[in-house]
């Protein structure tokens, strides 16, 4: 048995698969915010599957991001290099809200009196200029314990080059207070930039006790259900899973634990249908999240921040994270007029409570209301008909906007949909075009409650090759988790001039890092034969700062391998920035990733034998597509569609948790894997 559980704001999803029979199923239970684990346990019970002896359970949790954004972590102290305790509060001193002369900086997670300095200094090469003063460390520990801190972070300048002083400091703390959770910055990240690394270490310590408590308790509950500890995993921000033990040590790796899973699922679907390049789009109630899968792999970045937007600098977390762009556009996004009288959709959302006007409680017009008014959503088939929707209420909510523009209600609804689509398109371009990729080389994979409704328009605007809609788009994230492998990243900043002479140096560093990540996975009971690794080099022209990530094949690095690497860098730079230079090239970050391959279950096949389009037909209804004149659209039930037989738009394909729109001049078909494909008639 394989089980994945994904805790969302409203529902906790569970997807299971019986490896022997190939059977797949899912359960949805309400999230239990006061004890997230309770929902996991109850979802397993409700699945009515025998969980005993489950070989692999992976858990995606919002615990860490919630503890951070709600400031529910523990009182944390910081020990740092003498002269630099204010670094955590100074940050980078930027004012993103540039015309706001009353801008307020993010408050650090450790107040000044709990930031203590100790003597000891390295230079940028990692050479010791001043030895670490052990008495200072002991004194700092005493002060922090007296202040009642429950966790400590340690960050010294240049520890990413040489961790010696941090290790010494950690040893002293362990001797003095064996139970005190401690994070040494180099253990979380070996990249440079002291503010970013300090903040990362601090946030890790801040949530360590919370995560330990939670995972310990969940582990006991799951053990009680017969699931052994070695089977238990958590989903990390890097798109791979890790053991509960690793999650307790480095909880800051779990910040994006939930959202990344959909991207992993998208990569997996891409693999199944032979499409290595996929743009994933997760449209929920409040936000839309876009990400890119390139050559079968999600894009990873360590330039990640929480609480960061155009009005706030946020808090950097320097750990590998799947690169996701999130915008405030979802089914619950509210349509409103801005101060200049222009129509805006989101970022405010009616969320689940009060919800869209058509659900009977709220009265603000939302994107869902617009989709309902436009005839795109079937009012009697929302969540399979469990929640009836009121078209009249939706129309009423849209009325003031229609009056403002002097337009009909349908035209206004289409306006709202177009503005929301435009927001999503700009976000999708952010992850694709802006990073040097042509959307025409990609397929779009929408999921979440609202993805399928918007996929066909977005495909047309972006000119992606096709849209592919997975089975059960509403629980796709949990399904993606089920598909994940164990993953370990090691990234180290170590500036190296890339020439043929540097080959031995590169080879040695990469080999050392590979050995370490392999060992880390083996400690989690992954057999050596199941470990696969990848190497990347973050490179730049001498004098530049920002880098381009370039893959490096396995094997010994000799002069020829270096030449190949250089050429790939020039190409990648030109693709991203349109030019190449003759300047010398530097390698800044060494990046090694090891995957502990978990045998991925097969995707459930569908049998459409003997079915025809007529069997799936549910009649016709008026639907507004591009024009304020409705078209008669054929309505189909997804599960009864034949395999491989295309239907022509204008059409709507319905299923209990999603609605798929097929525009005029588009065709759609269901494949053997149960996926719906949509393409323009002129595409192939």
């Amino acid at each position, binding site marked *: 048995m394989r089980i994945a559980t994904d805790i969302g704001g409203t529902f906790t999803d569970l997807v299971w698969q019986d490896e022997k029979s190939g059977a797949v199923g899912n359960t949805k239970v309400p999230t239990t915010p006061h004890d997230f684990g309770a929902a996991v346990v109850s979802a397993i019970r409700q699945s009515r599957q025998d969980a005993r002896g489950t070989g692999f359970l992976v858990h995606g949790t919002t615990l860490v991001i919630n503890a951070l954004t709600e400031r529910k972590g523990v009182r944390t102290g910081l020990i740092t290099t003498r002269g630099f305790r*204010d670094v955590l509060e100074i940050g980078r001193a930027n004012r993103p809200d540039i015309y706001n002369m009353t801008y307020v900086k993010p408050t650090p997670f450790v107040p000044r009196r709990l930031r203590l300095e100790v003597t000891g200094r390295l230079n*940028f090469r990692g050479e010791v200029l001043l030895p670490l003063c052990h008495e200072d460390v002991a004194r700092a520990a005493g002060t922090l314990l007296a202040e009642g801190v429950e966790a400590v972070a340690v960050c010294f*300048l240049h520890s990413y080059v040489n961790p010696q002083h941090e290790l010494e400091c950690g040893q002293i703390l362990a001797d003095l207070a064996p139970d005190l959770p401690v994070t040494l910055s180099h253990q979380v990240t070996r990249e440079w930039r002291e503010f970013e690394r300090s903040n990362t270490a601090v946030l890790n310590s801040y949530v360590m006790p919370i995560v330990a408590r939670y995972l310990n308790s969940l582990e006991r509950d799951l053990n009680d259900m017969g699931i052994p500890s070695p089977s238990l995993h958590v989903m990390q921000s890097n798109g791979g899973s890790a053991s509960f033990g690793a999650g307790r040590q480095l909880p800051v790796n779990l910040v994006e634990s939930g959202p990344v899973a959909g991207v992993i699922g998208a990569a997996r679907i891409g693999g199944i249908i032979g499409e290595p390049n996929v743009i994933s789009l997760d449209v929920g109630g409040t936000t839309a999240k876009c990400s890119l899968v390139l050559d079968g792999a999600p894009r990873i970045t360590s330039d990640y921040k929480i609480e960061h937007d155009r009005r706030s600098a946020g808090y950097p977390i320097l750990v590998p994270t799947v690169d996701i762009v999130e915008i405030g556009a979802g089914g619950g996004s509210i349509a409103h007029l801005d101060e200049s009288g222009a129509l805006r959709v989101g970022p405010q959302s009616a969320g689940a409570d009060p919800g869209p006007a058509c659900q009977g409680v709220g009265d603000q017009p939302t994107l869902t209301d617009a989709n309902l008014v436009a005839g795109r959503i079937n009012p009697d088939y929302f969540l399979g008909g469990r929640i009836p929707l009121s078209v009249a209420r939706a129309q009423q909510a849209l009325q003031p906007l229609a009056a403002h523009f002097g337009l009909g209600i349908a035209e206004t609804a289409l306006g709202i949909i177009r503005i929301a689509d*435009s927001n999503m398109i700009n976000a999708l371009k952010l992850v694709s075009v802006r990073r040097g990729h042509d959307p025409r080389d990609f397929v779009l994979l929408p999921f979440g409650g609202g993805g399928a409704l918007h996929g066909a328009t977005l495909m047309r605007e972006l000119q992606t090759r096709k849209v592919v809609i997975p089975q059960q788009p509403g629980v796709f994230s949990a399904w993606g988790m089920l598909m994940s492998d164990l993953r370990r990243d090691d990234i180290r900043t170590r500036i190296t001039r890339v020439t043929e002479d540097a080959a031995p140096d590169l080879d040695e560093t990469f080999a050392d890092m590979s050995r370490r990540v392999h060992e880390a996975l083996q400690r989690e009971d992954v057999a050596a034969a199941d470990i696969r690794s990848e190497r990347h080099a973050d490179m730049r022209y001498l004098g530049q700062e920002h880098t381009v990530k370039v893959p490096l094949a396995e094997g010994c690095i000799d002069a020829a391998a270096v030449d190949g690497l250089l050429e790939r860098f020039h190409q990648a730079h030109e693709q991203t920035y349109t030019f190449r230079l003759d300047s010398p090239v530097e390698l800044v970050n060494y990046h090694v990733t090891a995957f502990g391959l978990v045998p991925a279950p097969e995707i459930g096949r569908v049998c459409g034998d003997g079915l025809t389009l007529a069997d799936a037909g549910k009649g016709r209804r008026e639907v507004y597509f591009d024009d304020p004149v409705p078209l008669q659209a054929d309505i189909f039930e997804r599960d009864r569609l034949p395999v491989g037989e295309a239907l022509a738009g204008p059409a709507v394909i319905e299923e209990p948790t999603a609605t798929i729109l097929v525009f005029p001049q588009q065709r759609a078909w269901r494949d053997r894997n149960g996926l719906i494909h949509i393409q323009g008639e002129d595409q192939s």
Partner: protein
Amino acid sequence: MSRDPFTLEIIGDMLRASAVEMFITYGRSAQSPIIYEVLDMGCGLISAEGELIAEAEGVPGFVGCLGFAVREVLGKFGADALQPGDIYASNDPWGGGGTHLSDVVLVMPLFHEGCLLAFAANKAHWTEVGGMAPGSWTTDSTEIYQEGLQLPALRLYRAGQPQQDLLDIIEANVRLPEMTLGDMYAGIAALHAGARGVAAVCARYGADALLDSIALLLKRGESVARERLSALPDGSWHAEAWLDDDGIGDEPQYVCVRVTIDGERFVADYSGCAPQASGPINTTHVGLMVVVREMFKCVLDPHFPNNDGFFRPIEIICPPGTLFTAQRPAPTSTYWETGSYAAELIWRAMYPVAPDRLSVGHHLSICGTIVSGEDESGTPWVLVEPQAGGWGATHRRDGQSGLVPSGDGETYIMPVEICETRYPLLVDQFAFNTEPGGGGRWRGGFGLIRDYQVTCSHADLTASFGRFRFPPWGAAGGADGSNNAIEIIPAGQGKAVMRTGRCARQRLQRGDVARLITAVGGGYGDPLQREPPRVAEDVREGFLSPEIARQAYGVVLDNAGVDEVATASLRADMSRERDHGA
């Protein structure tokens, strides 16, 4: 307008997204640390007539210049002479530059089917443009000719072809040609990103829809500005201030403004300001217009998407030949020392009208710093950076500590680890400057102290730290802040031998320390009204000594915290004493 309102809206969003794309492209591919790490740049799209239509928020003043640069190109060549693939460069402070020669604007006209539609433009601080001193800007120039290569709207590319002669001139006249030309290529890549965005709009909606949308954006900008303006009271407000000196000598310089709002106009009258200076602190008329716009936006609506329509209600009066309207060939290297004052005068004049939008006085000067030298192999290196400092309190909150000044925006300070890796310097400390100043019901934010110790045989320091003599202002009984300053501490000596607000190529030997100190911001309200627990908190955090808590705030602390009885009695005494004194 023939099109539906939503299409035009969507086009506006696409244009703004393209401007952001330009910004990211520039920052990610540039060679100068001041661009990629500090993000000292701005990017935008400009209408065919030279009006800003969409910006990426970087350095506010930079974005404000872009429209002027396009108008300089249009004025010089005429729209008919422009061709697809042309790229123009300008750094002329009197033309499209508006600041100093280090800030180079690149402009690219964008066409659709042979018809000029718009321009992509960006402006960034290139580390080297030649001139008398490494890093190009300096504090002792007396003519623009000393400050680097002047590029008065030159055609760098003609119909897609680089003008090699021009590139050769640039290469021959700058100290770090690879870096300078690398910045240029990065800037060009950013222009192409903007061009792609505009082309995408045309392909999807057609050029006519784009032009309609541009007209709508500008018109809407204007009507929003007029609406915001009408919400402010009509009236006339005066503010004056003193600058430290004229950039060369020691004599303080007087500047003033009278802001008048009448109905739908916003008039800034700078008559009466000191004449242009012999030192490089001068601002040009273009530079003045840019900073007035910046403050206008801050006061009226900081979040309305920026475009030039918004600025139509502004009128500026300032005779030629003042500090704010210097004439050629005045030097303008450290223009921010006056430009920031021109902005702050409006700030101060408008403070009573818009206290929700403004804080009280802050460190203000960009505190531009250059450290340069040669490494052991003889290769030249140049560090160029602004400094962050203390901001003033507002009428409901303490000031912010360690934030870039108003003239900088999405600008980052350089990490110590990167700084020490790139340059032969050791940073001995990077900490809050908690010296006394800025007391109030709400206190000023703290400045910063950054110590650079030289680890090679020698290096040179050039820096311009205005507000060395005249500290950030407090309001409503709040105290003024402290001053920006540069100190030199020779190797092996514990204390400074020099404290100044300005130096040019000051020689530092191995082991010498340059201490860069930025001001504490101004305070708001009577310090005796500050809630005692806040004072106690500041003492616990190490921001305030118990003595200052007593002297400045009348708060008496004991081991348990605030001694409320003693505090009440001390505050009553202080208040009585103050009344008697007055």
